[in-house]
């Protein structure tokens, strides 16, 4: 059984059918790409997968569980995490605390324990700190732990977003234009990071990206959206040579 099965997914905003009849099938451990011209509905698909938008049609099955239309927090607990096209870190909080928020449902204790400062509170907090620092180390951010997230340089902010998303212990990680605004060497480094994350955490990754060399070099399967519909799907080779894809990108 596939990790994520999306069938006939669609959403209409008023009279505008933003996404229509989208089917996706992601196998455990795979690296998938979602591409398409601007306004094709890629981020809308992400928003439906993470519960930000309620689909008007279709089903989303994660690991055998139907999560269609569930609230974002529930979907996060079910195992989908994401990053954002425009970085959305908690800017006024430290780098370490950003990751700790990601650990919200991983390391738990009651409010009561916290107020009375009972021993489990200190244990759990220590555990949380350990896990968060571990994640920061993976992304080379351990020396920035005490910094405000908004003070980090752009590339590090992107990394921190991935670290924060991984803290929620996802089965599926959605990356929304992770390479946006990066120079070629940073993009190269990011490719390594994404591959590493997949190997190290054994998770499935679906990413939206406009940088074609990035997507083609990284993803095993690519789905192409245009005007909210899938126009092509397959290996990078197949997609690259598909006349419909070429037409969508070049016009015609």
């Amino acid at each position, binding site marked *: 059984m596939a990790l994520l099965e999306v069938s006939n997914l669609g959403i209409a905003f008023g009279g505008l059918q933003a996404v229509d009849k989208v089917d996706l099938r992601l196998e455990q451990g795979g690296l998938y790409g979602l591409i398409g011209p601007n306004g094709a509905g890629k981020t809308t698909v992400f928003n439906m997968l*993470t*519960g*930000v938008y309620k689909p008007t049609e279709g089903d989303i099955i994660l690991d055998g569980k139907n999560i269609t239309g569930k*609230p*974002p*927090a529930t979907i*996060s*607990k079910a195992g989908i*995490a*994401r990053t*954002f096209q425009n970085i*959305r*870190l*908690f*800017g*006024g*909080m430290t780098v370490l*605390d950003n990751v*700790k*928020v*990601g650990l*919200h*449902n991983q*390391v*738990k*204790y009651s*409010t009561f324990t*916290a*107020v009375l400062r009972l021993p489990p*509170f200190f244990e*759990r*907090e220590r555990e*949380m700190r350990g896990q968060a620092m571990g994640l920061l180390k993976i992304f080379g951010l351990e020396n920035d732990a005490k910094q405000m997230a908004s003070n980090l340089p752009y590339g590090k902010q992107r990394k921190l977003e991935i670290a*924060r*998303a991984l*803290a*929620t212990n996802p089965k599926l990680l959605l990356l929304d234009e992770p390479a946006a605004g990066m120079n070629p060497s940073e993009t190269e480094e990011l490719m390594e990071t994404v591959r590493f994350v997949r190997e190290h955490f054994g998770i499935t990754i679906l990413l939206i990206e406009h940088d074609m060399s990035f997507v083609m070099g990284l993803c095993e399967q690519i789905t192409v959206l245009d005007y909210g519909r899938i126009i092509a799907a397959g290996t990078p080779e197949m997609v690259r040579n598909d006349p419909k894809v070429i037409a969508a990108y070049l016009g015609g």
Partner: protein
Amino acid sequence: MQFISYLINGISLGSVYAIIALGYTMVYGIAKMLNFAHGDVIMVGGYMVFIFMVNLGLPAIVSIVLAMAVCTVLGIVIETVAYRPLRGAPSLAVLITAIGVSYLLQNLALLIWGSTPKSFTSVVNMEPLRLAGGQLVITGESIVTIGVCIVVMVGLSLFINRTRMGRAMLAVSEDKGAAQLMGVNVNGTIMLTFAIGSALAAVAGALLCSSYPMLLPTTGSMPGIKAFVAAVFGGIGSVPGAMLGGILLGIIETLSKAYISTQLSDAIVFSVLIIVLLVKPTGILGKKISEKV
């Protein structure tokens, strides 16, 4: 010596404002709404302490804890019934609802307890402190109020910055959507905020009525509004701002009563609000809001 005595009274009054302002500022920071019913929760807290302590004869500390419990429940009920259905509604709708809840609480109190003022017995049973050969007298109420305020500030700062729930509160106040996607239960977090704010309002009610022992259904509205001014003064949404704003406002009010005019003191307090809004709209410790274009 006179001046120091006024100053201490001011800090004591300001401590009460600060505790109330915390409720405003936390709710604003997290739910982005002004809970104008907050002042009336103070009044309910006052009546609860009165019932438990004077009518039922329970010890002061037990009465306050019970009043805190009642107000916590009240805060949660208000949030769930009145504000939650309006999540995502325009802020004006929420504001008007808050004013409605405020009048509802006042009139319910009028219905239940009547319009005759109840004379409150102080929850503090402590000899005044005499310093400088009896020239400087600090009442037990002042000492307890300032002490409680310090404990609340320290406790709350630790809670917000060092615990899992506190971090969730900060995350929600930064970016509700992103917090949700990290698995934070936004409704639960907002409810917790209301619960904490209302519990603090009960404490403020007990302290306020101990220093000014007259309890009426409208008791909470003026301190509520002044605490709101304090929250704006300090920078609404900022917890240290509420503390600073509250204490400064208490000092300004007391000193203007002492040296300028008793009648004009409230006018002066509200002028402070206007001047702050003109000079620094985000308050003393408020964050600069950068508009995205």
